[in-house]
């Protein structure tokens, strides 16, 4: 099927986001039922169709949320042993402290559901679905700074340069729609203006080919850089320009017989459709109120976490 037509038929917000853009705070999706491109190295039929990955950079500590640590209460006030907190691991924030006492959580913990999942009182809603959750508590890092820790989370190494998880998913599952970003990253504008930086390399491809890296949907300005026509240029004019471009480029393609020109023509058409579709796609006005309510009061505020979650859905 003509990829452009394919794209066109799929360009409703839900189908686009759900099946091909698959957007999340970090999301990778694929179209595994379409014409096979990666079929040759698929030996087991994958069941996962898409991955939505929410990375909460910052926020309350796990010991205040879901990691029950009764021992801390018993040893309240004792110095943290250097086996846990080596002397040389001091951050800019904490290196001035004279003492590093053990401090337990201030919140009450209780067990929930048939599984007896420990959760603190700060998570009452989660407590109601405790048996629906798989909680992995064995992950740890000895990085004590934000950037190395975030880099470890996304790439498996504290030293930047390795592919991000999304890039691996994209590489492994692939997308059979070659014309759309199959891995989209969105950063949320938090309430803390001076948040920790989330750099593009957190969804980068590392040593994998660049096409596997995430495409960033921005929370400020154009959702995709340079998405909109310059001021004063109408859509009719843009269409006319593209028709001429296509004509002029096709003439050269005939002359040089280089398939790269045809690819470029197709990408221009795609860009044109994205100009129309992406604004539609991020327009939530057709969402039922019940859905908006479920996502909370910030669901319609561009760049907010709730908004990004709704888009990812």
């Amino acid at each position, binding site marked *: 099927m003509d990829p452009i037509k394919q794209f066109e038929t799929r360009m409703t917000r839900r189908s686009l986001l759900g099946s091909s853009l698959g957007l999340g705070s970090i999301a990778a999706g694929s179209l595994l039922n379409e014409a096979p491109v990666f079929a040759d*190295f698929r030996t087991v039929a994958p069941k996962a169709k898409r991955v939505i990955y929410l990375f909460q950079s910052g926020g309350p500590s796990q010991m205040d949320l879901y990691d029950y640590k009764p021992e801390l209460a018993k040893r309240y006030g004792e110095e943290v042993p250097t086996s846990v907190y080596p002397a040389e*691991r*001091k*951050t*800019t*924030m*904490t*290196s*001035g402290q004279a003492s590093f006492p053990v401090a337990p959580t201030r919140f009450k913990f209780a067990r929930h559901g048939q599984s007896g999942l420990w959760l603190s009182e700060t998570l009452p809603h989660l407590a109601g679905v405790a048996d629906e959750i798989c909680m992995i508590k064995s992950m740890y890092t000895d990085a*004590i*700074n*934000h*950037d*190395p820790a975030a880099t470890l989370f996304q790439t498996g190494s504290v030293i930047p*340069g390795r592919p991000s998880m999304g890039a691996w998913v994209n590489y492994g599952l692939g997308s059979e729609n070659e014309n759309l970003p199959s891995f989209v990253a969105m*950063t949320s*504008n938090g309430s803390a203006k*001076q948040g920790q*930086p989330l*750099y*593009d*390399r957190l969804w*980068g491809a*590392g*040593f*994998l*080919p*660049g096409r596997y890296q995430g495409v960033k949907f921005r*929370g*400020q300005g154009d959702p*995709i*850089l*340079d998405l909109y*026509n*310059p*001021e*004063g*240029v*109408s859509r009719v*004019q*843009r269409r*006319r*320009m593209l028709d*001429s471009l296509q*004509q*002029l*480029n096709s*003439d*050269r393609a005939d002359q*040089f*017989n*280089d398939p*790269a*020109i045809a690819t*470029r023509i197709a*990408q*221009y058409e*795609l*860009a044109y459709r*994205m100009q129309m579709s992406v604004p539609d796609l991020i327009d939530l006005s057709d969402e039922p109120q019940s859905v908006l309510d479920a996502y909370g009061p910030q669901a319609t505020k561009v760049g907010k976490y709730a908004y990004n979650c709704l888009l990812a859905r």
Partner: protein
Amino acid sequence: MHQDDSIQKRQCCPRNRNFAGPASSVSTPSSSSYRSGRTKLGNMLRLILTCLSVLVPFATTVRAEDPDFARDVRPILSDACYHCHGPDEDAREAGLRLDDRNAVFESGILEQELLERLTSEDPDLRMPPPDSNRTIDADDRTKLIRWLQSGAKWPQDDRHWAFIPPVRPSPPMVSGEWIRNPIDQFVLARLVDEGLAPSERADRVTLLRRVSLDLTGLPPSPDEVEVFLSDTSPDAYERAVDRLLASPRYGEHMALDWLEASRFADTDGYQNDRYRHMWVWRDWLIQTLNRNMPFDRFVIEQMAGDLLPDRDFMTQVATGFHRNHRINSEGGSIPDEWIVEYVADRVETTGTLFLGLTFNCSRCHDHKYDPIAQNDFYRLFAFFNNIAEAGLGPNNGNSPPFVPVPKSWPDLSDQERDFVEPEPVKIKVVQTSVPRPQPGGPETVMVLHELATPRETFRLIRGQYDQPDKTKLLSPGTPPVLGGWNAEWRTDRLGLAKWLVSNENPLTARVTVNRYWQHFFGLGLVKTSENFGVQGEFPSHPRLLDWLATEFIRTDWDVKAMHRLIVTSATYRQSSVVSSTLADKDPQNRLLARGPRKRLSPFAIRDAVLDASGLLSRRIGGPSVKPYMPPGIWSSVSNNKYKRDQGESLYRRSMYTYWRRTLPPPTMMSFNAAARETCTVRKELTTTPLQALTMMNNITFIEAARHLARRVLEEHPSDLRSQIGAAFHYVTTREATSTEIELLVADYEAYLDDFRSHPKRASQLLQIGDSKFKTVRNPNQLAAMALIANTLFNLDEAITEN
């Protein structure tokens, strides 16, 4: 950590063996090559081929039925077997290694067992086993079986081809008018072998555009085209090449590949990604390339300019090369851990850039494919483990060692050229007690400088800084498999640099000329220009590669001469039109039966647009500049604000654009610039809708469009067709056809009507960008012409070298 072969090569970049497959022996070419040739060329070829049938004994080619060990067999063994039966002792299964001739012969496996293992249907016997995640496809399996059946010839000297120093081959005995220099003899011999003929010569304008973009990164001006076209002497092209090689733009353009390989940037690269000041090193690079410093000296100065007997301030600046790596300055980081990172980065950069080897694999374990032991990595590491540096950066500014740059830079007095002793690291406890070194301000540049007492180097278990294998102190040394070490050299960086550029080094010259080839043809003779190891690609033209490498050494590493040799070859001058035969047989142009056709670099794309508009600043060198950037591009993800420049700085060449490693310029990145985190010598080229959006809508491109519009309106005040024709020429370097002109005239008129009905839109469009027009007499015409310019900038041809 640029290329992890075990992943990239095996699955997503399978080695292209199509053209390294068994070559047919030279026979009289079939008539098909005549038929595909055009008449004139056909006659010429007939002449060549007649000569060939007489002179042919260059056939050292292998007969189709005999797979060659180095070319055909080892790549398969490497891909499918070495992971478990290779150099890495810890990963070795059944005590069997297939990378060592003696071990293989001792095992006796070649007599019967290997054949059984390849042909058996029993999953317990058949190799590779299913759980290895390795496969041998049917063709390769057949090749191995044929090799075994033909006597399993495993040469006595079975070193990987790239580890044997190149021996200068004689160019094949082909002749004919087509041939202009020995490059063409190698290329033509191969084409004849394949039953193909070269393409005709590119037309003169196309060729001038191609060579101007390749040598200077800018298209030729209309004047330069006119001078060239009116020069009818036989060496007009050579003279144009010499003019371009002498242009100061040459050094700027050639510096770009080196900036990406040297991971040059304006920031440190980690957490807060603080600022550093290394533009003086970039200035040095541009000057040095323009002055055509011999490549061996170029390497020695950058690797060890601080250790030379004739060292001075300039050779010191050169060593900034190995300070361009990222530096961490975040509190809480452990200095010893980061010093290991910096030193490892130098080893890996040296490995990739000069030796074409992926040393990073052997940082944690013996290399899986190449005979590089983990100890070899740490013996190289020992060369670089003596720098008087700090593990944590100063958190803004240069990290020691650095030296002050005289205010008069780059016009230094003799006295200012003297070597300067950098002050030692002075750790101060600042802020809330994070220990940091003294920072160097914008008037300094980072350099290499040795510690009085070298650090001790041990093998690091799994590459971990805190797990040295203290049983053995390692001295500096080069990998034994590469040979070529001269016992008279000191075992320091200077010795290492001399070894890199010695005649006995098997790799540096090959790797370097291959990168030049990649620059001019888009793909190297070895496509994996970052990896000449066992997992790298076998060269498409092995003897041409060796001839070029030995020629480079013979000419005392004369870089401009090598570039001149390549661009004056008939091979380079061919038309890039792809015949349907070639489109099928050789889509990537590995056989070189046509000229290169390639997309411009991200830097050249922006520069060409600024150039056509007349906005481009011609100033060379100096600190980096901050042109337009999307709003909030820094502040949306970090605490820093991008304060963009004004005036001329918006229109400098793209190589001067401020490079923040964690947030590199998005326009450059969408056109596949290297991120400058680690050494990068080869980039994937993609074509994406984001590129189209940039070209159509980005402020730089729109501002340039309105300036190009005004330029042609002023130059041809009364004639619309001349205006459009001139704009077309500025962008594509060629005359538009009448069809093209008429199409654009119709567009112009439609746009003009639009703007007449909506004059506000015209003025909106004409406001985009900082540079304002003082007076605009016909805003509607100007806006309509700006859209024509916008169309032209978006042509495939505008960003392509044909």
